């Protein structure tokens, strides 16, 4: 989880990622930032995030992103 938080803070600072629950719905993160986050996550965790995973629910909070990473790590073992 710390790794996810550090990636998020590096891409866009000044947001309380531990509390925020609507990162995408409230347009706190735009499409370009989501794409940058995906690039960093893919490299840091060795996962492939596909367009099927591109639903707001997967990116609305740091916890949701972390859950996505865990799920993809499990699926892509």
């Amino acid at each position, binding site marked *: 989880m710390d790794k996810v938080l550090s990636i998020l803070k590096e*891409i866009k600072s000044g947001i309380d990622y531990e509390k925020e629950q609507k990162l995408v719905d409230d*347009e706190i993160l*735009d*499409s*370009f930032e989501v*794409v*940058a986050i*995906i*690039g*960093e996550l*893919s*490299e840091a965790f060795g996962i*492939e*995030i*596909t*367009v*099927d995973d*591109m639903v707001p629910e997967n990116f609305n909070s740091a916890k949701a992103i972390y859950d996505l990473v865990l799920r993809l790590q499990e699926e892509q073992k």
Partner: protein
Amino acid sequence: MSFISGEFLLFVFITVSLYYIVPRRFQWVLLLLASYSFYLFAGVKPVIFIVLTTVTTYLAGRWMGRFAKNEKKKKKKILVALLLINFGILLLLKYYNFIAVNINPIFRIFEYDVSMPLVNMMLPLGISFYTFQAMGYAIDIYRGKYRPEKNLAHFALFLSFFPQVIQGPISRYDQLAPQLLEGHRFDYENMKFGIQLMLWGFFKKMVIADRAAIVVNTVFPLYYGYDGSQIFVAMFLYAIQIYADFSGGIDIARGVGQIMGIDMIQNFQRPYFGTSVPEYWRRWHMSLTNWMRDYVFFPLTLSKMSNRLGRWSRKRFKGVIGRQIPAYLPTFVVFFLIGVWHGAGWGYVVFGFYNGVIIVLGMVCQPLFSVMNRKLRVNEKSIPWKVWQVVRTFLIMMVGKTLVRANTVKAGLAMTLSAFDISSYDFCNLPHRMFHMGVDFNQALILCTSCIILFFVSFLQENGIEIRNTIARQRMRWRWLIYFLAIAAVLVFGVYGPGFSVGEFIYRNF
């Protein structure tokens, strides 16, 4: 049938009356009949095209639905065939002549004795809107987002729903279809708010857009006869016109939907309050930009090739640029498509490229801007800075829209140079010349006042004030005074063209 006509109001009145008379389980049937009747007003031939898109998309959806979520290869073949058929039709009808005009000289250069003949083709109403809506549905089925619709008539209603079929918004199946199919009881609040929204749309279209169009249509074709200040005013008014025109039409469509208890998606969120070009695009024609984001931008940026590029760029360039590089090309592709979606012409191509360049340059230069702002001690949260960002974004978009609206791209560039060259301003008799652009003093006064009202309402909405709820809370006499003034404004100050028919909606032709 134009939204701005007595026929349309009568059509809505009859449809809504019947909608609440028939049993709720048959309301969707009535909507389907009303929608196809509405479309038939445009002629029989256009119906063939919407039926073709409906049937092919429905069948492809059912076929893809037979395969499991992970059987993507099989589903992909069906999807690709469907996309080729439907985008092929759109390409042929909308862009064939443009391609022919531009490709024939190339044939001649290489001395090939062939040429593509120009064909006078009919463009079915709303084809760009319903084709994109249908293809969005098909891609969602391919991705397994939801199950395909089993009932052809249900699906036909989703694509042909009469308030949206001509100029959008481009709805999503999971948002709109359930609302169309479930029954709705008559609700006074929905009726009241729906009529208010329609009235606001009529105000934007008839009082603002069609009046601004007089100045635009006077100055743009003969811009060389006007000085920089007049050209600037015309460019400014075109930006206002196209917003009031398109968003007014959407308000009317959404208002009709709301009267029947159907909540159609937002298409505008006060775009001219955007503080950057990307933010402007998140607020303008949102149903199209969201479509492009979900079905073009994300697939391109998450493709295997893009992933490889991303890995390389993150190693090669540290920091922001390394992360952003994979998004550059998809950004250009998206804005090229948004440009040409609007029509076949070099102005649209240039408009798309112009937006792509500005957005990518903004991303590349972002670290530099941050350093500059820190050195200059700019408070990025201060109101003056926000105002500057809003004005800057508006001017950038105003120039972009001019390139499309001008007779040629070259004329658009000449107008822009003149408008931003203060030395080309003729300050003698400035007030006098302002009224030699197609409107007299009274017309100009109405236009200014109505633009101020539009700005004021938008400003309140931007600050979280819901105008219709605020009006609803007022005492009855104040409420009705506001309604009366709004109706009177549309009836008295609406622009009525020859034969009392108002101007066409600009986006109706896209």
